[in-house]
């Protein structure tokens, strides 16, 4: 890939983190990585601990773990309700980091936090980075923090703690934004499949596959694609052009439907396996 177009300085470094290794392992098996998402504490942290193990057992390569926030502007209604359930059950950032600490070694795959900026700011970026690193967090994707504004404090704090910094690209990102994101990211780059918020959609946007191919030539890091991917067919299609496929709301919906039911873990595991198998 190095012969194709320019490559950003920072991202041309060896991708040697646990996240980088997870992508490399999937690649060696000639498939895209499966990256499922759940909100931590939805409906409570005990259930999340069980679901993390189920995801790992279902073939997840990396897990995206949502930090519940009161004002999740990048999320559709399904993930909004998940955050509301998580906060209602008393989930805090400390509780979430304890969950990671208890689960990370057990599941043996990297965990990336999907978060908004204010909870990290309230904790203090340096302190958060130290605590997250000590808990075993591998990467952080802060959805409402642009790479330019992340450069002064956020990226150095996380890098110093050995945590990968993942940033978003969208269909509206211009050339200079692609460059900024490539430079600020380590681990992987997350491409938002369409303009809009998280949530299931019946169809993939027609230009997605071409766009993903184009970006892969511009970004040296692995490219994961998410937002609106919910069926095994969609996972398979995106898996052909991306290094990783993120599925969130489709799994969160199973949690929502199963709250209080003894079938929750079984139904959730079934869905996770079905999505994961689509890449194998």
């Amino acid at each position, binding site marked *: 890939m190095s012969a194709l177009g320019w490559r950003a300085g920072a991202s041309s470094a060896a991708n040697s983190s646990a996240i980088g290794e997870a992508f490399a392992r999937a690649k060696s098996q000639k498939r895209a990585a499966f990256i499922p998402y759940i909100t931590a504490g939805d409906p409570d942290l005990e259930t999340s601990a069980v679901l993390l193990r189920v995801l790992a057992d279902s073939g997840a390569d990396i897990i995206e773990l949502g930090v519940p926030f009161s004002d999740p502007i990048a999320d559709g209604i399904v993930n909004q309700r998940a955050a509301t359930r998580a906060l209602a059950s008393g989930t805090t950032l400390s509780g979430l980091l304890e969950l990671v600490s208890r689960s990370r070694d057990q599941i043996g795959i990297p965990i990336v936090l999907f978060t908004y900026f*204010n909870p990290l700011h309230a*904790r203090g970026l340096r302190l958060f980075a130290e605590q997250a690193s000590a808990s075993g967090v591998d990467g952080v994707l802060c959805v409402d923090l642009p790479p330019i504004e992340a450069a002064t404090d956020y990226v150095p704090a996380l890098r110093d703690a050995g945590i990968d910094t993942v940033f978003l690209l969208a269909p509206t990102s211009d050339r200079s934004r692609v460059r900024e994101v490539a430079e600020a990211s380590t681990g992987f780059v997350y491409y938002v499949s369409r303009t*809009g918020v998280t949530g299931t959609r019946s169809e993939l946007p027609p230009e997605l596959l071409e766009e993903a191919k184009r970006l892969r030539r511009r970004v040296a890091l692995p490219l994961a694609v998410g937002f609106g991917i919910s069926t095994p067919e969609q996972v398979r299609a995106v898996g052909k052009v991306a290094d990783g496929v993120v599925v969130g709301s489709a799994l969160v919906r199973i949690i929502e439907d199963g709250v209080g039911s003894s079938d929750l873990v079984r139904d959730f595991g079934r869905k996770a396996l079905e999505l994961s198998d689509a890449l194998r």
Partner: protein
Amino acid sequence: MAPLSELERAYDKLSRKRSFRKRLESLLRDFAGRPTPLYLAERLSDHFGGAKIYLKREDLLHTGAHKINNALGQVLLASEMGKRRIIAETGAGQHGVATASAAALFGIECVVYMGEKDMRRQRVNVERMGLLGAEVVAVDAGARTLKDAINEALRDWVTNVRTTHYVLGSVLGPDPYPRMVRDFHRVIGLEAKKQLKKQAKRDWPDLAIACVGGGSNAIGLFSAFLSDSRVRLIGVEAGGTGAALGEHAARFSGGSVGVLHGTKTLLLQDGDGQVAATHSVSAGLDYPAVGPEHVALRDRGRTEYTSATDAEAVAAFHLLSRIEGILPALESAHALAEVAKHAPRLSKDKIVLVNLSGRGDKDVESVMEYDQNDQGGE
């Protein structure tokens, strides 16, 4: 975000163009009713027995509040940018009504997001927006007030950004919004300054007071007097029912630095960075963050902020209604409540300038409900 840089470029270019400024001026004059009067409230002044109280009558503008200044500016801008769809959030409904009017005038589709709680307490404004051809979308997430309406408008905007302009209604959000909204409201202070010179024989007040939700009417009034150190500037937040988190919207006394809706500013939040619930009898002040320029002005020592409780605001609402024959918006009534704390102690040659940012027709039900509950022995 790509749409923000597009907006920034368009605003910076168009706001310098003479033709754009002329068009906006004529809309503000002929459609909205500018200039608004500066009114010497003699009976109110006599009532307090001290300073002369002048009211800047933004309540007399078309659609009933200062919000139309910004709505016309932004909708004109959106139309120049070729956007065919307008979205807005609204708390009290004044910004929503103003935006719906401007969109109707330009023949542009308009969708307004409004918290479900606010829709109940500002029912008349919901009906007005419907009559003006706007679609009002009820937001039933979170506290179902202004903050949640902004969340939903932002989600719409990132989804439909290619066709849509988001008319943000206060000096909040990411650049260029805070400075753009401020610029569209500068006319308030500039007019008041000119009018004072003519009517009071000096172009500055001793004290200027405005209510602060996001802070757009206050910035509009203050901006003309910032460089004049003789003028004391006071912003009034919603004190609600008490000092505990969740009972008020007083960011300067109860907030800490945080990031919400793309703005780093004072925010009401818990120790974990979760945004706190707010309360105010006035829907337009019921928001957990304050415009960042107000924080910068306070830090420089140029402006001061205080709060008025629900009870003080409702009392001021009744006072102005009875002795001046003007029903003020409950938002503006917070500024009037602060006047009661200063005017009696100032001599008769002093001037207090108050921004009467909106009219109270929309609040009749809220005030009646408040009074009933109050008499019920709370």
